[in-house]
């Protein structure tokens, strides 16, 4: 085929609409007679609810009701466990999920206690301000280490401690190689993350149509189909009565995959009860307290090297803060555990984690989903070892990379998709070399760094590698339909939050059908249009839904070709689909538009043969047995200003391997966004808890989201190692940009300040922490290794 769509940097189908302000977001849904909800949320982190007095609020003009847990009757139930614990031998897991409104006890600041329904959001908030709740306050459990001490208060009664889960996974036999090590390094690492900070907060609008017995919900969810199924069950409706529409969404990043948030339950319930449309739009303060986030892990890791810098084994023991509830199971700590191994050939590994309940906002995956923590640990250990062994930082990585001839490479640990972790393929050394060239590594150390130091400037480079298990199952589906007009409709169940699905799925389909890209109309996340599937998470949209679109498009193509071959009595090999037409390459008179063929495929007379389907349409599903392994290498050049303790990221280079690239421009954009998120996480965002369980900085004045002036120019390169696991050969790309940034920046800062011999073992690296680290370095030296050195 001459005209290619797949692999081209084509402009986005959705941009025209979005740039004109015509995209529909949940808050754009305005329905006649609509009521508004505001929540009374717990002002305290840990308390028993003694008494709720909402009489004054109920009496206010414009208030249609105030509801607390007991008003919900049988509708009140504890939330589902979205992801059960993985089948790991000896795993201990204590499930605690949240009800739609707090009953008896509150476990974090911001937990909803009452829902107020009113004529406007203004009145609803005025009424919330009148509600009085008497609390019997309990000690807030906010310190991760202290939470496991016997004296700690219990976040959940009925448990012996605040331990939410405990799991050990091993590969090989770590202890057996410990004596062989030429170098043993042990360090404690603290990696804290923050809120996802999507531009659009959450929101739900629900409308009950008593005439048609249909409930329609506009929801800022990453998983409209599961929301539909769960709500139907909760509300005693048939799934055919519930329509969930996830319209344009201003960023998901993980927290919007939660099933279901309290507000997603309350709003539809109220809409049915009142027989009026009901709306709730989350505000930024609510988002800081009530939308899931990712947070702290504390790792104690030990690594063994031989004299040549080869890793003999790794042992890691870590604590994970899971917040007040653990509806998302163990996805985050399992990702940390598995991703620590990275692109390296490590034969002996022991990893043990404890997941811990605290009186803080619930933790569930945020872009990267725990991978950051693991990558930080292994990459930092490699840096420290390189220094001690006198090996170049890139060289020590190259020596440990899994070689291309070792794939499929079995790590044998159970991964987040419950399958044994196996890497499909990768070309790690190629990516590393490309990064070395792009960042100008050799010239920098031959010349530039010394020149800058002579001028009193502190400039350094950091380089780190990572893998990202992506594109996991279970499955997604797609329906491809050619209309008589020649337009092609593609419908898939996953939701879209800015991933350019309207373009990349169109490219995949256009590649098979040869229709102009703008004629391919993609619908995502609308259960009325496609009602099977899971959702957008784990960098799986392009892999799972993309391959479903591809197989459906291939089926339509086959159908079209078979139809014209019968009509024209010509061999299949002669048929070409291009520019919206289907024609024979041998006979110029044999040509018609795809639209005309669609009409012929749906005849007004005659019969459709048994076991065939009318129209140029096909529905197909794709379910990968296991995830694909994307990978990459990042590098940054940073300058540290010692006088202001500021870190300026001057350049950021990403060489990424997500297999076959559908649209390089879009993948670049994903990577830029991810790396920006990573830089925010590492240098700016610093979600800080106070002893009472409130955030010290639940606003964008003090919670520092990176903006354009803080961000460098990003440079990206692609290594294409097609995945053997799926027809398109693609791998996930959505989270990659955010994953290794902590390790990259930490290394670059150390390099810039090489005369200080710093060791950065904690993220975020704030101005305060950098200042303290430098002050400490001035007064004390580095810890001595207990390792053997020959």
């Amino acid at each position, binding site marked *: 085929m001459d005209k290619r769509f797949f692999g081209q940097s084509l402009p986005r189908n959705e941009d025209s609409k979005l740039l004109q302000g015509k995209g529909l977001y949940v808050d754009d849904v305005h329905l006649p007679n609509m009521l508004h909800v505001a929540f009374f949320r717990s002002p305290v982190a840990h308390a028993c609810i003694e008494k709720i007095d909402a009489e004054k609020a109920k009496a206010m003009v414009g208030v249609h009701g105030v509801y607390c847990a007991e008003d919900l009757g049988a509708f009140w139930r504890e939330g589902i466990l979205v992801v059960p614990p993985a089948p790991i031998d000896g795993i201990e897991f204590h499930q605690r999920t949240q009800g739609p409104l707090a009953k008896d006890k509150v476990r974090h600041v911001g937990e909803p206690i009452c829902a107020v329904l009113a004529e406007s959001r*203004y009145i609803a*908030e005025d009424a919330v301000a009148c509600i009085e709740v008497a609390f019997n306050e309990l000690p807030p459990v906010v310190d991760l280490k202290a939470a496991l001490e016997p004296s700690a208060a219990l976040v959940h009664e009925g448990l012996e401690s605040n331990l939410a889960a405990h799991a050990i996974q091993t590969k090989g036999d770590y202890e057996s190689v410990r004596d062989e090590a030429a170098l043993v390094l042990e360090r404690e690492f603290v990696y804290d993350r923050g809120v996802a900070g999507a531009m659009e907060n959450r929101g739900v609008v629900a409308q009950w149509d008593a005439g048609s017995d249909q409930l329609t919900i506009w929801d800022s969810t990453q998983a409209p189909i599961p929301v539909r199924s769960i709500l139907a069950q909760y509300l005693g409706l048939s799934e055919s009565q519930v329509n969930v529409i996830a319209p344009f969404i201003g960023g998901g990043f993980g927290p919007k995959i939660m099933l279901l948030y309290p507000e997603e339950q309350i709003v539809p319930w109220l809409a049915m009860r009142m027989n009026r449309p009901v709306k709730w739009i989350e505000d930024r303060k609510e988002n800081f307290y009530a939308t899931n986030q990712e947070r702290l892990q504390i790792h104690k890791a030990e690594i063994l090297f031989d004299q040549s810098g080869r890793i003999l084994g790794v042992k890691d023991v870590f604590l994970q803060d899971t917040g007040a509830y653990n509806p998302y199971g163990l996805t985050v700590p399992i990702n940390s555990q598995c991703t620590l191994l990275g692109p390296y050939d490590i034969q002996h590994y022991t990893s043990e984690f404890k997941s811990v309940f605290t009186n803080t906002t619930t933790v569930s995956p945020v872009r990267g989903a725990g991978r950051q923590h693991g990558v930080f640990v292994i990459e930092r250990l490699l840096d420290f070892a390189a220094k001690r062994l006198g090996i170049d930082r890139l060289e020590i990585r190259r020596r440990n990379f899994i070689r291309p001839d070792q794939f499929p490479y079995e790590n044998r640990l159970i991964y987040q998709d419950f399958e044994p972790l196996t890497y499909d393929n990768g070309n790690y050394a190629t990516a590393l070399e490309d990064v070395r060239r792009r960042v100008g590594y050799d010239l920098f150390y031959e010349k530039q760094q010394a020149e800058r130091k002579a001028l009193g400037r502190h400039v350094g480079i950091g380089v780190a590698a990572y893998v990202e298990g992506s594109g996991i199952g279970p499955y997604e589906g797609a329906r491809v339909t050619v209309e008589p007009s020649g337009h092609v409709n593609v419908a898939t169940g996953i939701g879209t939050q800015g991933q350019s699905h309207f373009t990349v799925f169109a490219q995949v389909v256009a590649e098979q059908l040869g229709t102009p890209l703008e004629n391919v109309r993609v619908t995502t996340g609308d259960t009325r249009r496609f009602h099977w599937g899971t959702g957008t998470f784990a960098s799986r949209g392009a892999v799972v839904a993309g391959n479903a679109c591809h197989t459906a498009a291939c089926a339509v193509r086959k159908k079209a070709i078979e139809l014209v071959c019968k009509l024209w009595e010509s061999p299949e090999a002669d048929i070409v689909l291009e520019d919206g037409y289907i024609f024979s390459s041998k006979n110029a008179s044999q040509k018609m538009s795809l639209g005309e063929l669609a009409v012929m495929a749906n005849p007004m007379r005659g019969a459709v043969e048994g076991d065939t389907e009318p129209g140029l349409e096909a529905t197909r599903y794709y379910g990968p047995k296991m995830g694909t392994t994307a990978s990459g290498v990042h590098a940054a050049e940073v300058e540290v200003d010692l*006088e202001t*303790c*500021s870190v300026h990221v001057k350049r950021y280079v990403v060489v990424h391997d997500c297999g076959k690239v559908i649209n390089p421009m879009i993948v670049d954009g994903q990577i830029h966004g991810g790396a920006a998120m990573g830089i925010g996480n590492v240098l700016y965002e610093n979600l800080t808890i106070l002893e009472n369980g409130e955030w*010290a900085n639940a606003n964008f004045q003090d919670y520092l989201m990176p903006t354009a*002036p*803080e961000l460098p120019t990003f440079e990206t390169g692609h290594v294409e190692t097609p995945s053997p696991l799926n027809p398109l050969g693609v791998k996930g790309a959505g989270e990659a940009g955010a994953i290794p940034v902590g390790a990259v920046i930490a290394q670059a800062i150390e390099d810039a300040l090489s005369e200080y011999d710093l060791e950065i073992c904690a993220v975020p690296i704030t*101005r305060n922490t950098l*200042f303290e680290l430098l002050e400490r370095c001035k007064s004390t030296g580095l810890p001595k290794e207990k390792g053997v050195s020959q």
Partner: protein
Amino acid sequence: MKPPPFQYCRPADLSEALLCLNKYGSQARILAGGQSLVPEMNFRKTCPQVLIDINAVESLKSVERDDDFLILGAGLTQSELARCKPMLEVCPIMKDVLDYVGYEQTRNRGTFGGSLAYGDPAGELPAMAMALDAEFELKAHDRSRWVRAEAFYIGPFSTVIEPDEMLARIRIPLRRDAVLWAFAEQPVKTFGKAIAGVVTALALDSGYTVSSARIVAWGVGDRPLRLNGVEAELDGSCLDDSVICAAVSKLQNELDPPGDIHASPALRKYLAGNLLRRSLQNLCSESL
């Protein structure tokens, strides 16, 4: 994040505004640019019963100049101030300082007087007013007075303004001597709230000796701080490395800054010292 109900009035001139203020007193707040007030209202941290919107009061946009003073209306927006030629003649760095006041969008709404009356200890404009030795005209319906910037601020977000008074004009003395200005600020990001900032106004005599120094810091105390000790250190000296060092250590002895998640007290002190050093070094190279 919606404010509770409030009354709203939009007086057409200053006397009407002052009558409103007299009527409602401490129940009322003046709405100028609203870039700090409205978010506070949305957070329900400030719940005025009456908002007096002074955006229709044309006289608050005045720019006048006589032999002794530049007199500016409190209602000039920060963007207008950055383009105000008489202001920049008196203090050329005002334009650069204003780059650090909020963002382009907020400066189009936020006013000079609003920033001064808000009294944010991390605010740039209160400190600039102090460095300019400005005076504020506080008007009530039945009286008015002029208060020097230095006497105006009494604590964080706290000033001597009475409930029935509003800040109407700012008058800046026109100095006869040539003044060299420098400022340096470290915000929490590239822009955003200041962690620390220092503005320096130096007059030099013909022999490059400092004849008068005025130095004000922000973000490092409960209000903008005039650094008298540092000024004394510089007065009469010839700017060189050792004088700059002495001034910096004087500053670090003089300050007792607060700490927050952005900077500990020790870091704030360290930053303020380095910012002063940078300013003085810049002036040094400029004056040569």
